[in-house]
């Protein structure tokens, strides 16, 4: 009953279009005020200490690092590198778009920014080469979402933050720890590569069937030069992953190091940015991070309310009694997250749903890392599926196409993504193999 009131209130407040953080906080305050005798002071303390953890601070650092390198110049280097490698295959520029999107999105950490940066450069080039505009727009709108899955990924940090510290028992009643940032980053590598390959295969197949043009093969010299130009940006991924894996840095330290590294590369190596542009980047990053940290604060409050009302426990018990297995459960989770992906942005969805899903999933014997990767993939698909995927909107802006036309344009890649989602859901080894081989499980 109480859970119905809480969720009803939350949904009603959210439908007015108020910021999700405010809707969460207001739900908690009004529920506690009206329905319970929980002292408000206990809640107040949560509001102040909710984000007092060093682990969460990886979020602003990664946003800062990404913003330093979210620049047209970096996008152009990634495109040049990608097209010198695979541009001479069928659908060369399309394949280059997939690879460039994957690389740029991983570095910049923002899917819509990737669609704009890569799209506004590559799309005119593709049209000029004689590709249909739909083909180009479809590739870029969907590939732009790849970055969420390839570390460093802010969504994964949020999964770790949202589930960290909560108590979950596996089917035998043993306590299971939530997935750490390091585990999720490593687990994301293989699925990220597989999805990029699958999107590439779809692109290749469509291009081969319709006989789209190929690029002249780049000479060795050109390829080496393009690689040398792009390698400074790409090293960021290796600094983060390598630093965390070898234990040189904690994830938050790795994020801070990558922010300093991105600053040096953007200002002194690539020189895309002048020193006088730096305050603008700092302000934009502070703005974005404060928004996410504010959602985290209120989501912590919300999950405090959930726990004090025993809602995750009740749901866990109910699902166990009803005899639902992990196969059906994950199907429901996928549908739920895809629906949520239509109306909310990824960080809010993860912060609200992860604390509820985590104990249920663990009680059904699902590995927390597997759940984390599955949620991340859902966020990715949610960005590009109609009617309201953010990537579709951004792409329709740069391609000057309507949402309906763009939806038709993206469907081959969207179907590919859904197949991939099914694979990630029902083949746990895809997410677990690499962390296990690296001894991180």
């Amino acid at each position: 009953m109480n859970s119905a009131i809480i969720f009803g209130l939350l949904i009603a407040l959210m439908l007015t279009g108020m910021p999700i953080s405010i809707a969460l906080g207001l739900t908690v305050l009004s529920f506690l005020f009206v329905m319970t005798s929980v002292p408000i002071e206990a809640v107040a303390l949560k509001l102040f200490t909710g984000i007092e953890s060093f682990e969460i601070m990886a979020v602003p650092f990664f946003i800062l690092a990404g913003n330093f390198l979210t620049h047209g110049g970096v996008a152009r280097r990634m495109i040049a590198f990608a097209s010198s490698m695979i541009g001479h295959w069928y659908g060369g520029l399309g394949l280059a778009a997939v690879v460039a999107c994957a690389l740029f999105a991983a570095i910049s950490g923002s899917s819509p920014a990737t669609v704009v940066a890569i799209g506004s450069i590559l799309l005119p080039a593709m049209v000029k080469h004689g590709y249909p505009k739909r083909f180009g727009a479809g590739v870029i709108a969907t590939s732009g979402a790849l970055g969420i899955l390839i570390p460093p990924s802010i969504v994964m940090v949020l999964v770790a933050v949202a589930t960290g510290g909560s108590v979950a028992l596996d089917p035998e009643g043993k306590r299971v720890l939530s997935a750490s940032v390091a585990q999720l980053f490593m687990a994301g590598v293989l699925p990220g590569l597989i999805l990029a390959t699958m999107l590439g295969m779809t692109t290749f197949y469509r291009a081969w069937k319709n006989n789209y043009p190929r690029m002249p093969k780049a000479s060795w010299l050109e390829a080496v030069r393009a690689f040398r130009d792009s390698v400074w940006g790409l090293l960021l991924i290796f600094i983060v992953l390598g630093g965390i894996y070898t234990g040189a840095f904690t994830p938050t330290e790795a994020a801070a190091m990558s922010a300093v590294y991105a600053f040096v590369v953007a200002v002194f190596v690539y020189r895309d940015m002048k020193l006088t542009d730096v305050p603008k980047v700092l302000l934009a990053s502070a703005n974005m991070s404060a928004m996410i940290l504010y959602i985290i604060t209120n989501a912590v409050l919300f999950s405090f309310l959930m726990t004090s009302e025993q809602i995750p426990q009740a749901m866990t018990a109910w699902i166990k009694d009803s005899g639902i297995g992990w196969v059906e459960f994950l199907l429901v989770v996928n549908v739920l997250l895809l629906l949520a992906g239509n109306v909310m942005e990824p960080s809010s969805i993860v912060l609200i749903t992860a604390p509820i899903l985590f104990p249920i999933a663990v009680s059904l014997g699902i590995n927390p890392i597997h759940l984390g990767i599955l949620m991340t993939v859902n966020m990715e698909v949610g960005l590009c599926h109609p009617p309201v995927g953010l990537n579709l909107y951004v792409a329709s802006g740069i391609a000057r196409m309507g949402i309906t036309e763009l939806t038709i344009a993206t469907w081959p890649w969207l179907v590919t993504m859904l197949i991939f989602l099914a694979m990630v859901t029902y083949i746990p080894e895809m997410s677990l193999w690499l962390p296990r081989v690296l001894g991180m499980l």
Partner: protein
Amino acid sequence: MFLRILDRLEEILIASLIAAATLVIFAAVVQRYALGVPFLYQLVYHINLTWAQELCVYMFVWMAKFGAAYGVRTGIHVGVDVAVNMLEPGPRKKVVLFGLLCGALFTFVVGTMGAKFVIELYPTDQVSPDMEMPRWIIFLCVPLGSYLMCFRFLQVAWAFWRTGELPHHDPGHVEGVVESPAAARDVAR
């Protein structure tokens, strides 16, 4: 005039905090590794940076509170606007105003709770574990930031009431892509 100064101060504060936090953690990591190098050890062994993590966390907490207020002004706090945008202009205006005023109400309540909390903490001598900074100074960001955010919500609501316009944040803004025709030629060669 006063508003312009407030806007500026807010921007300078949050941009400096994120920069400073980055440098502090960078320095702490560099110092830790410099300790392992014999000839650098002499230079850095007396510098104690164990408080770096704590300082970083508090700087980010301050940045989060004031940045959230700045975010109201830039329109970065997004909500679920699908249903609202389907309404007729008249009802839509009312619903959006309701949302903004709820924001003002919530931040006012939080600010007041924070103020009470700080006042209660002030006479105690609680300090933070590493830096031993008085806790009430650390928590001062809660009332200050929340009241500022409340003010921003009222400001946005007032502007929306008068002009019907909301601040809008563009998630797809990227520097350096305006010259795309030239760039397209480069790729096309």
